């Protein structure tokens, strides 16, 4: 990601302590942000009502590539929770931003 000048940013409803543990275990060096009230998640229309532990609202999986002007250039809205964007797909999309 760094090589193509893209900063990954992960977002979920998890509180910072949980995200810290997650990022530590996964070895992430990029920002992992907390959206406990699902405000950003709602503004991106990604709310998955009641799908989290204890029936809380969480985000459905999705990726958005945003350019330096703040415009969305590529999105991935998987229709299957197990199937995620592969790194090659993201790197291809990142070439759009050069």
């Amino acid at each position, binding site marked *: 990601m760094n090589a193509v000048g893209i900063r990954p940013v992960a977002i979920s409803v998890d509180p910072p302590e949980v995200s810290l543990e997650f990022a530590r275990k996964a070895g992430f060096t990029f920002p992992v942000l907390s959206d406990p009230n699902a405000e950003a998640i709602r503004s991106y229309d990604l709310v998955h009502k009641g799908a989290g532990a204890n029936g809380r609202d969480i985000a459905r*999986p999705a990726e958005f590539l945003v350019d330096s002007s703040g415009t969305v250039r590529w999105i991935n809205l998987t229709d299957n929770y197990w199937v995620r964007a592969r790194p090659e797909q993201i790197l291809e999309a990142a070439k759009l931003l050069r």
Partner: protein
Amino acid sequence: MRIRFFTWQVWIGFLICVVALLSYPLFFVRFPVTRDFPWANLFLYCVATVFLIVGLRRAFGVAGTRRRRILGFVLITLSLLVFGLFCFVVFIFPRQLPPSSAAPQAGQKAPAFSLTDTAGRTVTLTELLSTPLSGKPPNGVLLIFYRGYW
């Protein structure tokens, strides 16, 4: 003891069904090749089917007894239930995602946000787009929304 070992193929077939179910979320999801379509697990189910058919033919064959037939019937029913559960977990349940029809599309402005990072600092989308990455401003940001860690 004699019954179980006479119809050992049916037991093996059933065990393979259970392994095929559990190995998807525990192992095969780690590799995109076996995750995006569970061909490895479906292959295991084919192998299980062979064992079940061989075992059932023995249980219902000349040397079969009523107890063996009942055992064979119970195990194949359980195997089918396990396979059904596998299909639900892999094909049906994960597709029950909200449509997200109002999500920003390519060409639209990404909605602004202000969220907390793991160090407790407030971070905005604007900052993420402008704070240098390896010494120069990033070409862009990849927002990865995920369910959460649990």
